[in-house]
């Protein structure tokens, strides 16, 4: 039996589960907020064109609009200044084999409960490896915080001094990118960086270091608690937008039971 036939049979029988890591695209889903003098991330919007009525008797459809970075979305290397010269750095150029691959999940949910500015550090990564083994090269690394369970204002957690949400330190990103050579990094928060990530050196280290090295980003993920620490496969193909720096997408994981 071929590998793929075997896989489809196991999926049909439930031995391989397909887990949806995506939030529903919804006008009320928070997006990243920049200081108001900067251009802003467009919210998801949907306008009805017809609904089986005088505007189109037999069909219903909508026009939709949003940013490349709205909802559960993918960051390409060209999204960040550090990645602007990376070859094949736009969403339409990324080799397709990069869009499906192995994934590991580092569970930070306990620490995040106590500290909303919780940091993923090299020490935490090494402790995880001590338990689950070294992170394989070219893997997706997802930071589980259970942040996706937050609703409303608690999600951005915006205060006078900016948003407060967990994320990796510059050192953690360097470890993952330079020493583990990961494929990409994903989070449940609105960005791959911590809410206060602007105050690191370099600012927004996840974006800066990941994309500078041609690595990928995923944010606004959900259901990371349904993934095993290792062994799952992530399917994350963005829309093929010419010179796109990112894209909303449906992120799925295959998990062996």
């Amino acid at each position: 039996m071929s590998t793929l036939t075997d896989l489809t049979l196991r999926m049909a029988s439930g031995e391989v589960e397909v887990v949806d890591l995506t939030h529903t695209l919804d006008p009320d889903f928070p997006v990243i907020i920049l200081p108001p003098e900067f251009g802003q991330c467009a919210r998801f919007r949907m306008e009805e064109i017809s609904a089986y009525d005088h505007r189109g008797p037999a069909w219903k459809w909508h026009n939709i609009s949003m940013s490349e970075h709205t909802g559960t979305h993918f960051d390409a290397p060209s999204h960040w200044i550090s990645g602007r010269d990376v070859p094949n750095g736009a969403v339409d150029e990324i080799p397709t084999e990069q869009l499906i691959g192995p994934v590991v999940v580092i569970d930070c949910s306990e620490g995040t409960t106590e500290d909303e500015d919780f940091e993923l550090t090299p020490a935490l990564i090494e402790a995880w490896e001590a338990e689950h083994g070294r992170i394989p090269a070219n893997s997706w690394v997802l930071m589980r915080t259970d942040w996706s369970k937050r609703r409303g204002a608690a999600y951005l957690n915006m205060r006078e001094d900016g948003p407060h949400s967990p994320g990796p330190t510059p050192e953690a990103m360097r470890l993952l990118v330079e020493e583990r050579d990961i494929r990409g990094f994903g989070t449940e928060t609105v960005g791959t960086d911590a809410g206060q990530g602007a105050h690191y050196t370099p600012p927004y280290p996840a974006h800066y270091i990941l994309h500078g090295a041609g690595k990928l980003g995923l944010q606004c993920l959900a259901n990371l608690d349904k993934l095993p620490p290792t062994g799952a496969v992530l399917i994350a193909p963005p829309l093929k937008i010419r010179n796109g720096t990112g894209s909303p997408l449906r992120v799925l994981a295959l998990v062996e039971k």
Partner: protein
Amino acid sequence: MTTPLTPPPKKNPLKRSLTPTSPPGVRSRATLGLTAAAAEGRFMLQTCAECSTVQYPPRDACCECLSVDLPWNDISPTGTLLAESTVRTSTNLYFRERAPWRLGSVHLDAGPTIICHVHGDVAPKSRVILSNRLDRSGQGVMIALPEQRTPDMEDDPELRAMSSDPKHRRVLITDARNPNAPTLARALHDAGATMIFVGESETWLPNPQRDALSAIPGVEIMALDVTNTTSVKELAGEIGGKVDILINNARFVRPGGAMARGDVAFAQNEMDVNYFGLMRLAQAFGPGMCARTADGVNSAVAWINILSAYALVNSADYGCFSASNAAAFSLSQNLRNDFRAAGLRVMNVFVGPTEDDWHQELPPPKVLPPTLARSVVQGLRHGLEDVYCGDVAKDMIERFRAGPKILEREMTTGGQG
């Protein structure tokens, strides 16, 4: 003396709501001058440029010297009530439903005799002040008021039919995040509005004005994002049957013209909030409000757009914002057409630069929220269509009338000051 209006009882669900009817609305072109004056609360009549005879009814030639040069001028509105009648039956449905209706014949001190509506507190054959108001057909009509204010005179049924008075009415203010929202809500409460719904966009972001708004009696904060069709429709589904006055104060503003910006992103935001926002609100709330304009004391009565005075002429420093407001202004004229049959008034409040973050670089005078709130409430009480709020807006409309092209050139100095 006027009997004060009592708060309306809850709606009887078994009773059919009255279908809106209109007073006669056809006028000659000359008489539209009366309407134009009433739209901004002025009392104006034609005065012959050659012999100074004040004309009424409006004419195309002077009844004294046949001159055809009959400019409209502000005229003293004082006069004497010569005769009166109370119409108890009419073949016109609007007046039939509102009978008895008092009218009279007033000798204006300035000359002509004017058939007009008569306020209930005017004594027979007494001195009166004529006020030029828009009736529910949207045309200018005159009503004789007592020379001295009387208690509760706004509650007179004829005067109220020509106003958009917030007393006992329910208001929706669309943007709780606008810095003017708490002052506006407070002013409407003070003017007798019973419920003040305030729309709040993006409840996932903090709103520092929430507490101030919630402290005002009658205020209820509702989720509403004018850039989100679904959100607008959902709120209309929820409270659309209760909105008597809608105040669209949602605004997106960033400095800069097309060349300063180099992209269309902010311009799209401006159009989405300032223009499409108005359109979404109109499509969602307009039909329900139009169906309720004859619904008793708390009938739907007015639609208010807070526009920038730059809707009249482009301000170079806010070039793209001005354009979005010009679009909204144009759309408001279209809405006037669509709301007219129902008698739902569209009032545009043209505001000069406001005291906020986005006009920080402009010198004073700037419009503070209390000034705007006062303009809105006064405009509603007088049933106006066009209100110019603040010194800059007043200056601008005066220059606009004198010559739009000259104003355009004044506003576009090309960086030479």
